[in-house]
């Protein structure tokens, strides 16, 4: 049989239509099959929000290690922080002397009280965080509410962030931390060998509408709030009290303030 040009074009047209219809339905199917819908995910209805979270620590209210201990214990218990002695120590919340905490304050004839006090230290959740800049995998990132957060799933343990952080706020897991956790908190993960960890301003508690663990345990000695809101309690406290920040001249703009 001889095919005319007319017949050929008819068959070609129908074939093209059929193929288009098939491809269209296959595309629609593949779209429908993938279900984890982003629009079906939302923050908890009680979650706390802020423009920039910050903390004020009233150092006048702390008189010794026994005042710090319950805060550190609350934090480390909640987050499954291992207790390791020596150089492989892992810490989220710890204390140090005035000269170690504020080394750029070269105060001659420093007040005795200030000189002998210990200071509660933690990640400063800097407004301009150097750890975020140096992280090659974006495992460390700054959230919209100012919290410098870590995605442990992405951390490759390169420790650039530890070199970048001028406050020593980051700890590396040189070994599996599990054997060094006295009592595991079953609702929070641990870490594994080869990742860096630090304080997260208790993002998991803020998501549930609760204050950070150390703030709750401090019974008012630490105030946590929104630095971006001029009418917030924390801003009023900052307006009424003289405060220090750690190494402010480095330009990292820490969000943790100390009333001296």
């Amino acid at each position, binding site marked *: 049989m001889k095919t005319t040009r007319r017949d050929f074009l008819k068959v070609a047209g129908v074939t093209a239509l059929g193929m288009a219809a098939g491809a269209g339905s296959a595309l629609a199917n593949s779209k429908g099959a*993938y*279900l*984890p819908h*982003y629009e*079906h*995910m*939302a*923050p*908890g*209805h009680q*979650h706390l929000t802020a423009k920039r979270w910050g903390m004020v620590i009233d150092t006048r209210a702390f008189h010794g290690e026994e005042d710090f201990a319950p805060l550190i214990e609350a934090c480390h218990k909640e987050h*499954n922080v291992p207790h390791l002695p020596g150089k492989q120590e892992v810490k989220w919340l710890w204390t140090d002397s005035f000269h170690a905490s504020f080394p750029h304050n070269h105060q001659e004839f420093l007040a005795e009280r200030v000189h002998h006090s210990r200071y509660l230290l933690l990640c400063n959740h800097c407004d301009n965080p150097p750890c975020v800049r140096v992280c090659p995998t974006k495992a460390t*990132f700054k*959230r919209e*509410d100012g919290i410098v*957060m870590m*995605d*442990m*799933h992405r951390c490759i343990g390169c420790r650039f962030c530890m070199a970048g952080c001028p406050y020593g706020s980051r700890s590396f897991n040189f070994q599996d931390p599990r054997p060094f956790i006295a009592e*595991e908190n*079953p*609702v*929070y*993960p*641990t*870490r*594994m060998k080869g990742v860096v960890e630090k304080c997260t301003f208790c*993002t998991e508690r803020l*998501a*549930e509408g609760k204050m950070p663990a150390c703030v709750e345990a401090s019974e008012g000695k630490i105030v946590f709030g929104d630095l971006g809101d001029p009418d917030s309690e924390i801003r009023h406290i900052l307006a009424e009290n003289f405060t220090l920040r750690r190494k402010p001249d480095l330009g990292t703009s820490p969000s943790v303030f100390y009333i001296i």
Partner: protein
Amino acid sequence: MYDGGKIIAGLIVFLGIVGFPFWYNAGSAGYKTPELKLPPKSKATECIEATEWMRAEHMQLLNTWRDSVVREGNLEYTTASGSHVEMSLQKSCMDCHDSKKDFCDKCHTAAAVEPYCWDCHIAPKEEK
């Protein structure tokens, strides 16, 4: 053919080695989906997504949940039937599916996959 005997013997040995996986497994039973121990109905009242879909896609769901919670600060997932669950492996998934050994490990062992979830996440205590 020169050295025909040696060549044929060599070929038989060669085919025997190459075909090892086939003749070694011939006659043994084929792969069966392991029977999972489902949580008791009293505890688990509803599935967040259809079983068939979860079987194929739970790893994508977990990855999506992970990014949503850690990076976007989300907490709640709306299930197929419209109810809300907290996006948490330890708090939600393993609350109903309370045995890693009888639920996760059965398929993962049969399929020879080793997900690294449990390097950090804490599995529920197994009842002996």
